[in-house]
């Protein structure tokens, strides 16, 4: 409060405040990986693991419960294909292994590269949905006019919370031809 040498007092406060500004700017960017990590741990935004889960030895099929898994699919806006699941939903026991085929028709007359991204709702169920094999793990080259049948093999962890009796797995199929050619990958980073 004294006004003996306000300049040096000022500059010490200014330094601290400017440092806070820089820290908060960096914090904004730091939130990006923190959010990703948080989502991986909690299933907050419904993303599933991007790697194949191992089929567990001696996993018990919980025959006392039925869970309905629904599939929704969408081609990204402007992507030249139709994309649909072979079945709209399956009823299954936790611990049981199912295979569902997804079908993509490339309507265009060029070779394209597609990438599907999954999302599970409710988000917390994404932690219990394990895929042992999925087309979404890698980029899908589609030749002109090709119809591809892509399998997805998955099971629900028997630890799936009791209150979840129905969950939705949604896929969006993006056209990443341009990025794939320029060498950028479009898969969700780990």
């Amino acid at each position: 409060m004294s006004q003996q040498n306000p300049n040096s007092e000022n500059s010490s406060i200014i330094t601290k405040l400017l440092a806070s500004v820089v820290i908060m700017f960096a914090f904004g960017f730091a939130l990006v990986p923190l959010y990703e990590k948080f989502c991986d741990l909690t299933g907050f935004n419904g993303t599933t693991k991007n790697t194949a889960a191992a089929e567990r030895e001696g996993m018990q099929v919980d025959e006392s419960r039925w869970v309905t898994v629904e599939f929704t699919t969408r081609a990204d806006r402007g992507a030249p294909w139709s994309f649909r699941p072979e079945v709209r939903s399956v009823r299954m026991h936790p611990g049981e292994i199912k295979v569902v085929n997804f079908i993509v028709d490339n309507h265009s007359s060029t070779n394209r590269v597609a990438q599907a991204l999954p999302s599970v709702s409710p988000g917390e169920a994404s932690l219990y949905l394990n895929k042992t094999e999925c087309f979404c793990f890698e980029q899908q080259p589609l030749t002109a006019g090709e119809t591809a049948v892509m399998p997805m093999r998955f099971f629900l962890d028997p630890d799936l919370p009791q209150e979840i009796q129905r969950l939705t797995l949604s896929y969006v199929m993006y056209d990443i031809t341009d990025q794939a050619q320029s060498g950028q990958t479009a898969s969700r980073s780990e």
Partner: protein
Amino acid sequence: MSTVVADAHDAHDEHHDHKPTGIKRWIFTTNHKDIGTLYLWFSFIMFLLGGSFALMIRMELFQPGMQVIDPHFFNQMTTMHGVIMVFGAVMPAFTGLANWMVPLMIGAPDMALPRMNNWSFWILPVAFLIMLSSMFVPGGGPAFGWTFYAPLSTTYSADSTALFVFAMHIMGMSSIMGAINVIVTIMNMRAPGMTYMKMPLFVWTWFITAFLLIAVMPVLAGVVTMVLTDKFFGTSFFAAAGGGDPVLFQHLFWFFGHPEVYIMILPSFGIVSAIIPAFARKPLFGYASMVYATASIAGLSFLVWAHHMFTTGMPTVASLMFMYMTMLIAVPTGVKVFNWVSTMWRGAMTFETPMLFAIAFVILFTIGGLSGIMLAITPVDYQYHDTYFVVAHFHYVLVSGAVFSIMAAAYYWLPKWSGVMYDEGLAKLHFWCSLISVNILFFPMHFVGLAGMPRRYPDYALQFADINAIVSVGGFLFGFSQLIFLAVVLKCAMKKGEKAPAKPWEGAEGLEWTVPSPAPYHTFDTPPEVK
């Protein structure tokens, strides 16, 4: 908080009261009063401009169907209205008030960093020139709402987004510099005896607001940078195809955005806490609790951001956490409202225009606060989300809240700034016209919102026609009522009116009333002694 100012000191002021004249005075000024005046005029011009954009919106919505403007232009109007009112009108008005009043209230000769002060003002008009010019480039200006959600602002936006981002950066820098200046001034330049707990509440609320600005404006800068690189440089912060997440945008934006709405209301609390005691002729009830309430609101503002995003499909636990945190804010806010009411209780009240605006603030802000509590309830928010109920809510707190408090402040301190009393008759007319029209404008929006009319569309279902017509009439009445305010201010600026005494309000307290009216160019060269 009474003070003694040596008479010799005033004479001394008169002695070197010379200043550069003409346009150079305003461009090169480092005087806190000049810069305060510049900020206030700038915000007033922006208020009228942003208001005229709102009238374009209301004109289009007067009747269902497409009437006057095309949807893309409508979207630009909603966006620019929001951006201009938030960053061009309300925030600079508060900064202008801080520039004028904080040094006068704490007995400082000027702001601590006068040259930076000049910069922080003069980059603002540049930012808004860039922002407004973006509407004239091919593809049109920003049309994605002031919240610029990705992918609207990345995948689907016009090229002018680069100008939008650049302008936002400059505005952010201006705000940060202003905030640094306020903090350094308050920490280092208080007059002897002016302890923290003796500071007027306007100074306190601005002190806390400045910390909020420093905490969140850099985050906004980060978000707009990510939008820029996503759109033009191939990054994928918010693009799912590239491994990003559009919901992340909303988290980052509202981490800035929620403290931002308190940045736009905390200084109002300070203004009202100065005006109500002055006209109730009683000291403010519960000064210390007001300070703590302001600090708690500021702290809580960092823990509630996701209440803007209940419908993004958050887990129940997270929704509940944000719902309870949001409701918790009602507690310190309620403390404030009850303190203002208690201050008026059994006071010897008179109802000059500043007091009228302050009382209207308390009542209408509380209505806006209560609809805010309704919106905080997660399950019902699913119905209210993105409807006109939300529009009604935030206009009650921002127009009849923040803007009314700024008008109250202008009337309260105009005699000090200009040296003449404003025209009380015109001012009362302005108040009553504004009060009635603001309610015609925003109250019926609650009903169309509850009935399901969504925000941000240039057209609506037929059953909303009558209420929208009423709302539009209210909008035009409110807009044109502000021209009365312009007339009152111009009269004062041209020194037409009764000469104002140093302390025109009988019950007013504080150091600013110890200097003559108009306040001399240099005040408190020798610090006053605060007892």
